[in-house]
C-alpha cells in the first residue's frame, strides 16, 4: 500500500498547510477513497510530529555569544561623560569621538594608532598625578580579579609578577575611547606600569612603541587587547610583557 505517485508532494504540502483551498478540497476528496494516500499523509504527519517533539535544533554555545559580544562591544561605546579629576570616581577621559573610534577600529589592521597611544599615555600620566593609581589596592590577585566583577563585562586575567620583579599594586577602572577598560597596576622599581585591558582583537605578538617618552607594548590574547604603558626602560617593559603573557597562558 503506497501513495499515488502524483499526489506525494501535495500530501506534504497539505501536512504543511501550504495548499490553497481548491487543492485542499480536491485532495481531501481523493484521500477519502485512497487508503494508500491516507496512510502516507498520516506517516508524513508522524515524521513532522517526531521532529517537533525532539529538541534537535542546536542552541548557540556561550562562546558564540562571547565572541559576538567582543566584536559588538566595539560598535557601541558608552556616551562620553567627562568628569575629570574627581577622586573616587571612575576616570573619564574626554573622548575625541570619531577620530579615536576610527583609530581604535584601525588598530586591528594597522600597527600604528597615534591618538590611541597618546590617550593611553595620558591615562598613565593621570593615574600618577591625580593620586588615583588604584581603586583596589592589594597585591593579592584573588582580591583584584573579583573586584572587576560587574564593573567590566569581561574577565581580565590578573597575575602577580612579584617574583619576576613586577609586583602587583592593584586594579582600577579607566576609560579609553569612552570604553570602560580594566587597568592593572604593577611596580617596576620606582616606575609604575599600567596595563590596560579591554575586549578586542590584536596580534598575539607583542609590539613595542614609543609615545611622548613613554614606552607602550601591545599584544592580544583570548579576545582581549593588552596595552602596557610605563616610563621604565623598553627592555623592562618587554620583559614584563613576556612574563605576563607567560603567566596567563
Amino acid at each position, binding site marked *: 500500500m503506497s501513495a499515488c505517485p502524483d499526489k506525494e508532494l501535495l500530501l506534504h504540502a497539505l501536512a504543511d498547510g501550504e495548499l490553497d483551498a481548491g487543492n485542499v478540497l480536491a485532495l481531501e476528496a481523493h484521500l477519502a477513497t485512497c487508503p494508500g494516500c491516507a496512510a502516507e499523509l498520516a506517516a508524513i504527519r508522524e515524521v513532522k510530529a517526531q521532529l517537533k517533539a525532539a529538541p534537535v535544533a*542546536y542552541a548557540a554555545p556561550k562562546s558564540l555569544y562571547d565572541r559576538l559580544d567582543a566584536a559588538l562591544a566595539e*560598535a557601541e561605546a558608552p556616551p562620553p561623560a567627562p568628569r575629570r579629576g574627581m577622586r573616587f570616581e571612575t576616570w573619564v577621559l574626554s573622548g575625541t569621538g570619531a577620530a579615536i573610534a576610527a583609530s581604535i577600529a584601525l588598530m586591528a589592521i594597522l600597527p600604528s594608532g597615534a591618538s590611541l597611544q597618546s590617550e593611553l599615555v595620558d591615562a598613565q600620566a593621570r593615574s600618577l598625578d591625580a593620586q588615583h593609581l588604584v581603586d583596589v589596592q592589594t597585591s593579592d590577585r584573588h582580591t583584584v580579579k573579583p573586584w572587576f566583577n560587574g564593573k567590566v563585562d569581561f574577565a581580565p586575567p590578573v597575575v602577580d609578577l612579584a617574583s619576576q620583579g613586577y609586583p602587583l599594586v592593584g586594579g582600577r577602572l579607566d576609560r579609553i575611547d569612552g570604553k570602560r577598560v580594566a587597568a592593572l597596576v604593577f611596580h617596576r622599581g620606582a616606575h609604575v606600569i599600567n596595563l590596560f585591558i579591554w575586549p578586542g582583537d590584536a596580534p598575539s605578538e607583542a609590539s613595542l612603541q614609543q609615545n611622548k617618552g613613554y614606552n607602550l607594548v601591545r599584544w592580544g590574547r583570548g579576545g582581549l587587547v593588552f596595552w602596557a604603558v610605563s616610563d621604565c626602560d623598553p627592555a623592562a617593559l618587554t620583559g614584563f610583557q613576556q612574563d605576563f603573557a607567560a603567566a596567563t597562558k
Partner: protein
Amino acid sequence: MSGRLLPFRRSAPRAAASGPASFSSALRGGPRSTEPAGAAAPFPRPSEAPRFRELIVPHIDAAYSLARYLARDATAAEDIAQEALLKAYRNIDSLRGAAVKPWLMAIVRNAYFDWRRRDNGRTVTGPAAEVAMAEAPAEQSSAEDELIRQGDVAALRRAIETIPEPFREALVLRDLDELSYRDVAEITGVPMGTVMSRLARARRMLGERMGILEATA
C-alpha cells in the same frame, strides 16, 4: 580566559525564535551614543545595536543551528554563525521591513558557502564526505535506527546530518525553522516545486529510519 560576566540567558532551541533578547552588556540598555564613529570603523553605525538586539538576537540559536546542520561541525558552525551575524549587523539597513528570520537564514547559508570555499575540503565533513555518506547506508546501522525510534535526540541529529545537503537544508529550514515553502525557495534559490520534492525526499529518508515512512513511494 574564564567565563565572561554577561548576564545572557541561554534559551532552549525551540524557544529560540521568541526567546529573551538579553545578550550583550555592550548592547544592553543605556542611552546610546549619538556620536558617529569614523568611516573607517568596521561597524559604522553604532546606533544600530538596539535594532540588532531587538531583531536579530532572538534568532541567534536558529542561525547557529542552521550553520551546524549545514557544516556538521561545531567549530565551523560557530565561525559561520559569527560571520553571518556580524554581516547581518552591518547590513541591518537592507532589511527594510522584510521578515528577519528568512533574511538572516539566507545570510547564514551564504556564510556557509563562503566557509566551504575557504575551507576547501580541509575538514572531513566536506562535500566529498557527504557523497560518501549518502552512498554508504551501511553506516546507518540497525542499532542506530533503534536509537532513533526511541527518540534519542543525538541519534536523530546524526540521522539528519546523513541526509545529503540539498534535502537536509530544505528539511532544516522547513521543519526546524518552520519557514514557508516560499521562504525556503527564496533562501535556497530554487523553484518552490524543487523545495517540495527535496523536502519530501528528506522526510522520506528520515521517516524510513524512524520506521514510519516506507522505502519507496
